[in-house]
Every structure is written in structure tokens, then in C-alpha cells.
């Protein structure tokens, strides 16, 4: 009656072995490492770079334990932090500005474990130290900018089409265009409808004036806000690269917020400066008449900038247009050649300036330069084919679709990013992080020992089996968290402790039930069987109510609470498995084979 078929034992054994393998990496600790990432997606970390890194380390006589190419980056592990710091300085000099050379802590687990994708849990900022920022994107500013731009564009459209109007004004989210008579309005409406598909138009008559009201359509409003957040994410990513953080997290949270997590960063002042900086974009003319001097100096009135490929171009100092005049940049295709292209739209003033500049410079090249941290880089340098009016500009030729997307994003990111504000900051110093780990670990350890001693004393053999089941629960929970690469935080550690404390409930229920059945006078074998059977429904019910609380916490919790909720939910699942199946398997192994069992050790 109390025997499992062989496959069931094997299955449980297999689960436990898998649990053990995936828990194992957490015990090897971490070794200090230097991580090298290319700054741009177009440059790849490859074997050649690996060779360069290895050679550089060898000539400087810095011994690395392991230098590997992993995914998009090269990781060099060192025995101590002293070597690590030296290697970082060396590699930074050696590789130049095109690479991010960051300090990192990497798992020291052996390679055969890594091959199973058995990786240690990822430690949260409160355990490893670092900065967490929550930034709020100013959506109103993004909309204001779009509406302001539309106001100017409506004016220039009407002027271009020679439609008489007496004024364009903006009240909040409402644009009002006033016309002198109904026919003018009708003509205006046709034109505006064609060009401003994002706006809904309504005709109105007010004190003898013919008015056309334009409001932004909800879907267009949504799109503007969405793209504002996307641009800001991109800008932030570019900037965080400069900070040299190995594993930054930059994510959208909710509609209008961005989370930035920088593990290991201590200099919060610099981090804030870099995140808060605004990039500027400038359009200037390329000077192709002069050559770059042999001494490397630029001729009078020009400056040298590099483009993405690293070619140097001479660019005039005079600024044709600044980034504020660019309303939008979208990737697309040339309508004639169907080549990849970037479509720019300029505001009214920008359109006029651009028209004048292009008329004077047909056949020459212009350069769009992105300035960040006082350093300029040429995003693109197209040839001007003809005079361009109307504020619609297309940049095309020799461009892949990805490049068009990148360029459009860069142009927008430099020009349009809606203002952001830090609404939450959490910084944890490394010493506090280490303290948090040891506190969390110690309290779990002491709690576990107390429970183990009590259970063994109170329920004897069955208590000891319960403790084994609880240990299996801990093993499986940590294995599961490691497999999912969940981030372990202090609340998460509290969650592990709490689930262990609660998981023992199932075994107490079972043991109490067995005692009760024994008191009722049935044979030990039958009592064990009945105890497990009768307790099962109760265990399921009580775990499900717990699970409901865990899921609600997960859905509505933020940051630290979410981590706690994940552990709670997973812990409930593993505890069901271990307290029912694992403990039963052990009981079956110990007692199940004896045909004439007269007494069991249950205290």
C-alpha cells in the first residue's frame, strides 16, 4: 500500500538531481572580471578582438584566469580585484573609445555547469550594491512639442497654398484656425486633411468668424507618447554605455516611466549628470574643397569630425540648422528607387532655412552631427541633389534598412527626447549589500536549524523525513530561481525564509493526520496511507489561497515586492512537490517494504 512504482522514485530522484545541478553554481562565488563590449551594434566582439585582448594582457604580464568570448562581449576573469583594476586601465588605453571596458563580477562556476545553462542567481542591487533610478518622461512636454510644431506647419501650409486665413492659435490641446470666409475654410480643410492625418478637424462658426478646430486623434497622441519613451530609452542606452556598466538594466515601466539600474555604480553624481544630459544635433555643410592637412590641423573656419565608419570629414563651423527644428525622423523607403531612406520633417522655421541653404548648395554635401559630452559625431553626410522646400526631407542612398532605422532613431533621440525627471532613486553601497546578504542568509539558516531540531524532536522519524523534504524544497526553490535567472533581492531572501516556514505546514498536517489515524486504532501502514490521503485536499486548498495572495502581490507589487512575490509563488509550487511527493517517497522507502509493521516512529 505504501509503495511507489520504480518510475516514480526515479522521477523524484531525477528532479532532485536536476535541482542539485542548478543550485550548484550558487556555491562557487564570483570572480572579479573585466568585460569588453563594442560601443556600437555594427562592431562585433569577435575572435580578432579576443586575440587583441589576450595579447595585450600577455605583454603587460597580467595573468587572467580565463578570457572568453561570450555572446556580444569578451570577458576576462582575474584572481583578485587588484589585477582586475590594472587590466581595466590597460585595456581601456589599448582599445580606445570604441569599446566599453567595464568592471564586473562573474560566476566562478566551472564550464561544464555553464554548458547546462546552470548559472547562479542574479543578485539584486540591494545585495550587490548599485543605483536604481526611476525616470518619468514628461508626456505633456512631448505633446506640447508636437502641437507647437503642428501650429507652425499649418501656417506654412496655408501660406504655400495661398489660402487666406486670419490666425492660427493654440489653446491647450486644441488648435484653432480662423478663416475670413467659408470657401477659404473649405479649401483649407481639404489641404489640412491631406497633410495632417493625425488631427481630427471640426468646423465651427463663432461671432462671424469661420473656424476650423483641430484636435490630435487619440491614436496619434498615443503614438507620440510611445515614441517619446522609445527615444528616451535609446538615448539612455547610449549614455549608460559611457558609464562603463557591465550589466545595466534600462526598461520601460508602465506608460511613461523608465527604470535604469546600474549594478556596482557608486558615483551617483556622475551617473545622474550623464543620464540627465541633453544631446544636440546640428546640420552643417561639408567642406570638400580643402584637404585634411598632413599635420592633422583643420583649415580656418572648419572643424574635423569622424563618421560612424571612422572616416574624417572637414565640416564648416557655420551651423545651418539645429536639432530643435527637426520634428520627426522616420525610417522608410525612397518612393522612386525603393531604397531604404530616412524621412525628416522640419518645423516652419527649419523648413525655410533648409530651403535657402539647399538652394545655395546643390551638389554639395551636408553633415548631420550629433553632439554629446562636447564631442561631435557625424550621423550621416548626404549629397544635396536639389532645392528642398516644404520641410520634408529624405535622406537616402547606400543605406541598409537597419542603418536607416538606426539613423532615424539617432536623429530623433538627439533632437526630440521629451524631458525626463528622476522620480525615484535607490542607491545601496557595496558594504550594505554584503551585510544584507549575510543577514538574510544567517536568519534563514538559524530559522531552518530551529525548525529541523523541533520537528525531529517532536515527530521523531517522521519529523526527520519532513526536514529532508524541507531541505529538498529549499534546493528546488533555489534551483528554480537560478534556472529562471530571477533577480534575488533582500525581500526575495525574506520570501525564501517565509516559504520554508510555511511549507512545513503541509508536513505537520500529514504527521498530525497519521497520529490521529493511529489513535483511531488502525494499522501503521493504513495510517500512513490514510494520513497522506486525507491531508492532501487540505494541503491543496491552503496552498491555493496562499498562491492567490502571491499572484496579487506579483501583479500589483513594484520592485522589491515583485521579487518577494515571485519567490513566494515558486516556493508554494516546490513545497507542494517536496512535502507531498518527496516526503512520501522517503516514508515509503523506510516503512513501505515491511509487511508486518507494528509501530512507526512518529513521537
Amino acid at each position, binding site marked *: 500500500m505504501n509503495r511507489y512504482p520504480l518510475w516514480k522514485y526515479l522521477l523524484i530522484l531525477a528532479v532532485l538531481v536536476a535541482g542539485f545541478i542548478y543550485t550548484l553554481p550558487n556555491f562557487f562565488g564570483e570572480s572579479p572580471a573585466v568585460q569588453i563590449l563594442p560601443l556600437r551594434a555594427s562592431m562585433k566582439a569577435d575572435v580578432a578582438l579576443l586575440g587583441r585582448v589576450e595579447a595585450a594582457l600577455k605583454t603587460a604580464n597580467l595573468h587572467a584566469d580565463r578570457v572568453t568570448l561570450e555572446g556580444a562581449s569578451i570577458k576576462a576573469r582575474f584572481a583578485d580585484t587588484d589585477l582586475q583594476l590594472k587590466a581595466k586601465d590597460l585595456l581601456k588605453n589599448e582599445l580606445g573609445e570604441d569599446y566599453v571596458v567595464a568592471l564586473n563580477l562573474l560566476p566562478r562556476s566551472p564550464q561544464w555547469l555553464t554548458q547546462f545553462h546552470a548559472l547562479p542567481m542574479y543578485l539584486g542591487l*540591494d545585495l550587490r550594491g548599485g543605483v536604481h533610478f526611476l525616470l*518619468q518622461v514628461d508626456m505633456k512636454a512631448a505633446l506640447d512639442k508636437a502641437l507647437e510644431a503642428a501650429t507652425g506647419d499649418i501656417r506654412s501650409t496655408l501660406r504655400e497654398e495661398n489660402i487666406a486665413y486670419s490666425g492660427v492659435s493654440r489653446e491647450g490641446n486644441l488648435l484653432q484656425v480662423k478663416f475670413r470666409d467659408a470657401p477659404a475654410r473649405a479649401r483649407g480643410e481639404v489641404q489640412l486633411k491631406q497633410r495632417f492625418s493625425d488631427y481630427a478637424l471640426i468646423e465651427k462658426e463663432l461671432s462671424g468668424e469661420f473656424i476650423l478646430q483641430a484636435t490630435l486623434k487619440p491614436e496619434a497622441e498615443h503614438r507620440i507618447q510611445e515614441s517619446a519613451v522609445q527615444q528616451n530609452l535609446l538615448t539612455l542606452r547610449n549614455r549608460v554605455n559611457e558609464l562603463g556598466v557591465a550589466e545595466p538594466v534600462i526598461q520601460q515601466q508602465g506608460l511613461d516611466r523608465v527604470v535604469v539600474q546600474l549594478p556596482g555604480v557608486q558615483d*551617483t*553624481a556622475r551617473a*545622474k549628470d550623464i543620464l540627465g544630459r541633453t544631446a544636440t544635433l546640428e546640420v552643417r555643410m561639408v567642406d570638400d574643397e580643402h584637404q585634411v592637412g598632413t599635420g592633422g590641423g583643420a583649415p580656418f573656419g572648419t572643424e574635423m569630425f569622424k563618421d560612424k565608419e571612422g572616416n574624417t570629414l572637414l565640416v564648416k563651423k557655420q551651423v545651418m540648422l539645429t536639432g530643435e527644428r527637426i520634428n520627426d525622423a522616420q525610417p522608410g523607403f525612397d518612393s522612386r528607387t525603393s531604397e531604404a531612406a530616412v524621412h525628416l520633417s522640419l518645423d516652419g522655421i527649419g523648413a525655410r532655412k533648409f530651403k535657402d541653404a539647399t538652394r545655395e548648395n546643390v551638389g554639395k554635401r551636408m553633415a548631420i552631427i550629433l553632439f554629446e559630452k562636447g564631442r561631435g559625431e557625424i550621423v550621416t553626410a548626404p549629397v544635396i541633389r536639389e532645392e528642398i522646400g516644404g520641410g520634408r526631407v529624405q535622406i537616402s542612398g547606400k543605406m541598409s534598412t537597419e542603418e536607416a532605422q538606426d539613423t532615424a532613431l539617432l536623429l530623433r533621440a538627439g533632437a526630440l527626447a521629451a524631458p525626463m*525627471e*528622476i*522620480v*525615484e*532613486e*535607490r*542607491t*545601496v*553601497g557595496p*558594504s*550594505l549589500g554584503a*551585510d*544584507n546578504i549575510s*543577514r*538574510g542568509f*544567517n*536568519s*534563514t539558516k*538559524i*530559522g531552518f536549524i*530551529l*525548525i529541523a531540531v523541533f520537528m525531529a*524532536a517532536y515527530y521523531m522519524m517522521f519529523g526527520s523525513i519532513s526536514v529532508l523534504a524541507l531541505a529538498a524544497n529549499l534546493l528546488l526553490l533555489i534551483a528554480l530561481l537560478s534556472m529562471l535567472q530571477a533577480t534575488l533581492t*533582500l*525581500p526575495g531572501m*525574506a520570501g525564501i*525564509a*517565509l516559504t520554508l*516556514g510555511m511549507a*512545513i*505546514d503541509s508536513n*505537520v498536517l500529514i504527521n*498530525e493526520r497519521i497520529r490521529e489515524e493511529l489513535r483511531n486504532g488502525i494499522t501503521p501502514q493504513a495510517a500512513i496511507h490514510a494520513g497522506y490521503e*486525507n491531508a492532501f485536499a487540505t494541503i491543496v*486548498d*491552503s496552498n*491555493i*489561497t*496562499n*498562491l*492567490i*495572495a502571491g*499572484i*496579487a502581490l506579483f*501583479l*500589483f*507589487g*513594484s*520592485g*522589491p*515586492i515583485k521579487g*518577494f*512575490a515571485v519567490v*513566494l509563488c515558486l516556493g508554494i509550487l516546490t513545497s507542494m512537490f517536496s512535502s507531498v511527493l518527496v516526503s512520501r517517497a522517503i516514508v515509503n522507502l523506510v516503512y513501505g517494504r515491511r509487511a508486518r509493521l507494528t509501530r512507526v516512529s512518529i*513521537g
Partner: protein
Amino acid sequence: MELFKIKQDIPFMSYGRYTTAISLVTFLFAVFFLAHKGLNFGVDFTGGTVMEVHYTQAADLTQVREQLAQAALPDVLVQNFGSSQDVLIQIPLKQNVAGAKLSEIVMVALKNKDPRVEMRRVEFVGPQVGKDLIENGAMALLLVSLGIVGYLWVRFEWKFGLSAIIANLHDVVIILGFFAFFQWEFSLSVLAAVLAVLGYSVNESVVVFDRIRENFRKMRRAEVTEIIDNAITRTMSRTIITHGCTQMMVGAMLFLGGETLHYFAMALTIGIMFSIYSSVLVASPILLWLGVSREDFIKPEKIEVEEVLP
């Protein structure tokens, strides 16, 4: 070893009047303190800045206050945190004109006097974030309550769901009452603990309810009060032992987990204590009062009657 050898059922239900009175009084006290003193919301909810700094020797708090006053921060809460070398600085939102930059200003001010001061932790929370957290917390509480009532309704009967949730919300109010009375800081992690207690103490009621249902089937001739008394008595040993074990773990966190886990564990401790009480002495009397009966589980057999229809 066996701590609870109870031969006869304890007539819990006949004490119903007293236990209800006790829980009503505690409940009203909790509500009174909540209304009168209110919760001492932490920076997570109110917004503001909290900084933890570490000195190499015992810190002079008055001096820290003076230094901050010189940095145009006169109304700042400065206190020791854990040890005499650790200092906690709390700056309310309305004084904070610098936003996220404030922490740097404070560090510069402190480093003027003692360059060895080490920044351990900074938490800055803007006003909007706090408001969102309160809303989300309330939503989570609502969702947990509805989810539990719903589940117990399906699994048992609506009377069970309702009495369990009343008993457990009573626990939640009492935990909050404690936090209001002692003016302990109510932070995000305390909120997490409160919600976890809700799931955990419903657990307790479920175990008793399971027994009640089983007894309705087994003890055919017994009165409803006898059935409930028996169910509580039979599960009492398990109740005490389970909670004792959970409390061992929570106690370890309370004493060894450091400041961050202290109030989290405190909320759990209060929750565990009161959930023992409420599941036995609040949920069951309510169940009785709602008129639970055998028919709720054992449906009378339908008698097939032949009908003649026009």
C-alpha cells in the same frame, strides 16, 4: 513527544460571545489608533529622501543636524540606525528643492567635517510614485480578498468564503493598528508582509473548514456547534505547531535580519499570532452565525416525481 493530548472536544462555540467581544474590542482599538494616530508611512509612500551614512566612530547627531542646517536643510530627521556609527537622515519632500540631487548636497555637507563618512544607502521617492504605490497596494488587497472569497466559495460555500475573509481582514486591521499605535514605519516591505499574512492566515481557516466539511459527512447526528468544536479541537495541535515553526523562521528574521527585515518580520509576527486567534475564534463563530448547515454540503436527494403537463 506530544504537546496536545486533548481527550474531549473543547466547547469553543459556547465561548463565542466572549471571544467575539474580545476581538471586537481589539478591532475597535486598532481602528481607533489608525484613525487617531494614523500610519507612519515610510518614504516609499510619502515621497522624500532617506539616507543611511556610516561613520568610522560613534556619530555626533547634533553636529550632523547643524551641518545639514547650514546646507539649508533645517527640518531634517536625524537618528541612529542599528548602531551608534550608522545614521539615518530623513528629509521630507517639501523641503527638497533639489529633487534627486539632494543626496549629493547632503554628502558634500557631511564630508566637509568628516571626509571618512561613507554613504550606505539613498532612497529618493518622488510624490507621484508614492501615490501609485498606495493605489497599487489597495488594489492588491482588494484582489487578494476577492480571489480568496471566490476560491472558498467554489471549494466550499459562500458562507465559508465570507467568514474567512472577515476574520482575516480583522487580522490585517489589527496589524495596521499595531503599526499605528507604536508609530512603526510602514514601508513597502511591511505592505508585502501584510498581504502575505492575508494568504497565510486564510490557510488557517481553510484547515478548520476542511475539517468542518469532513465532520458534516462523518458525524451524521451531531449538532453544528459540536461539529465545529470537534473540528477546531482536532486541528489545534497542527495549528500551534505550524505557526510555531513559521514563527521560528520569522523570529530569526526579526532578530537577525537587520533593520530592513525587522518590521517586515514584525508585521508577520503580529499576523501569525492573530491569525491563530481569528481563524478559530472569529471565522468559526461567524460561520455559525451565518447559519452553516449540513445541507450546504450534502444536497438532499431529488425525488423524481412524474408530472403531468397540460
